[in-house]
């Protein structure tokens, strides 16, 4: 059982081109910033818009030049970003809707819907209207509604984005559990890297309508291939053309600034991404006179404290995020607006092809 997508989908002037595959028993995350084309892709897979190219599910062609299978005939369960529960129907009627539409008789559909709600821990409020449900409960109803028809593909569009932080953790666990149990193909669309790495076995990174990287969460964590991917795994990324400077060192031009990076293997002419761990950045209040060849000055633009560590963003050109201890923040007396020097050795930078 495989989902194979190779399409160009258009919505207005926006175009998304993507090719990827997902196997049964595997969760694939489509990860990308807002406006990257994720939702357009969801609509195309669900059959709600007609793409160019080909979509195949479990050996059945859903879309190709020869035709388009309408959404109501696709074995796909969708949980939409804002759930889209039917406001005039109770929880159990929402879940039973798909069964009724496919011709299951009323009492049978109702009891199966009740069972589905029960499995998701919502057995005691079957007759509540969507507006009376909490965010977490509504999420469960939407999931039950998508699952009850036993689809081949489960498609979750930003499943946690509508929830507040408190319920999000709880619902994420539930999602993970339900995804693990679901025997078919699982596709989760998200802009949240935490959500993606929590739920997915494989990630497809989508930016400005194009796939920029496909790989396991581990692959992407260690070798992000784009500025966006580097940002969400928490690395500094410098993007630009690289040229040889001297033996063992190269010069990367990014915006108005230059970053000195190691030059080991010759990259084909063109752009590269240089990655730098925030923990490898040193901050000082005066211009450092050390071995570090990359020194940038700028004001601190924000400080985020996570336990013992603090992430400090310096609004230099290029902007740099440093990770230091909370003790160092105090010792240096850092606050927003403090003028600092951020420095790092060329050796700390890792260069990957863009």
């Amino acid at each position, binding site marked *: 059982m495989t989902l194979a997508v190779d399409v160009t989908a258009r919505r207005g002037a926006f175009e998304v081109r993507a090719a990827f595959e997902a196997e049964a028993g595997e969760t694939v995350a489509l990860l990308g910033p807002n406006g990257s084309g994720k939702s357009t892709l969801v609509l195309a897979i*669900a*059959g*709600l818009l007609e793409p160019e190219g080909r979509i195949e599910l479990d050996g059945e062609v859903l879309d190709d030049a020869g035709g388009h299978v309408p959404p*109501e005939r696709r074995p796909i369960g*969708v949980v*939409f970003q804002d759930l*889209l529960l*039917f*406001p005039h129907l109770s929880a159990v009627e929402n879940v039973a809707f798909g069964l009724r*539409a496919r011709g299951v008789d009323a009492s049978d559909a109702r009891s199966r819907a009740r069972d589905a709600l029960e499995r998701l821990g919502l057995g005691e409020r079957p007759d509540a209207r969507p507006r009376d449900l909490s965010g977490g409960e509504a999420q469960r109803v939407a999931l039950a509604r998508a699952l009850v028809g036993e689809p081949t593909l489960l498609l979750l569009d930003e499943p946690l984005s509508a929830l507040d932080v408190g319920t999000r953790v709880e619902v994420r666990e539930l999602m993970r559990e339900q995804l693990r149990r679901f025997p078919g193909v699982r596709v989760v669309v998200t802009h949240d890297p935490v959500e993606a790495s929590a739920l997915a076995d494989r990630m497809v990174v989508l930016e400005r309508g194009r796939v920029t990287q496909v790989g396991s969460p581990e692959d992407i964590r260690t070798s992000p291939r784009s500025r966006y991917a580097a940002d969400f795994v928490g690395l500094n990324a410098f993007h630009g053309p690289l040229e040889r400077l001297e033996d063992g060192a190269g010069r990367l031009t990014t915006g108005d600034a230059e970053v000195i990076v190691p030059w080991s293997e010759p990259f084909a002419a063109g752009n590269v991404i240089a990655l730098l761990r925030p923990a490898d950045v040193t901050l000082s209040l005066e211009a450092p006179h050390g071995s570090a060849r990359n020194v940038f000055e700028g004001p601190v633009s924000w400080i985020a404290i996570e336990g013992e560590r603090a992430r400090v963003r310096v609004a230099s050109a290029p902007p740099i995020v440093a990770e230091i201890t909370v003790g160092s923040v105090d010792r240096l007396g850092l606050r927003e607006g403090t003028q600092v020097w951020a420095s790092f050795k060329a050796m700390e930078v890792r260069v990957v092809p863009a």
Partner: protein
Amino acid sequence: MLLVALPLLALIVRTPWGRIGEVLTSETVLTALRLSLIVATSAAAISFLLGFPLAWMLVRGTFPGKTFVRALVVLPLVMPPVVAGVGLLAAFGRRGFLGSWLYDWFGFQLTFTTGAAVLAATFVSFPLAVLALEAGLRGLDQRLEDAAATLGASRWYVMRRVTLPLMAPQIAAALVLSWARALGEFGATITFAGNLQGRTQTLPLAVFEQLQTDQEAAFAISMLLIAIAFAVIIGLRGRFLR
């Protein structure tokens, strides 16, 4: 405020409360009331049945001249009812271009029948139904229909279980508004359908006729129409007239 209240007060004062029961149960009034209910209900039903597909096309369709069609739909709202009646006469009258054809081929004459009264009432109440239904369709989150489709619902099933139920308030508004407008219709009816007791004489026409013979009776029938209007307003309150 005074402008609205004064005629109402005057009417209450001048209504012959002593013989109101007698007037309202008279043959003339009962016949007119029955006919009014038939005409208004038919007009509301036809307005809804024809208005729904039209509203659908105006909201979801793309066709040339859409703006023109929309303008045409609301025209009867601002057109003097008498002019509407004259127009209907020109089209469906004995010598009207459609009417003469009907007469020559089927020996059928629409004018001076209850059907004509229904047509006149429909003509003036139809725009209200279209406007209410249009608002309903416009306010509907189409993605709910998409969600229904992904759950395996055919177009017809989506319409029946999602679109129509979600539009229930606007459908009710369309029916009530067009019904009320049809009930009060006078100008187009008297011009096109005439004033024939039992066939085209609805309550407003009865008021008009009584005014010339028995003023008190006219006031009594007017009170009845006002009572119906009040009932409609109270029925609509908290639903659409918030």
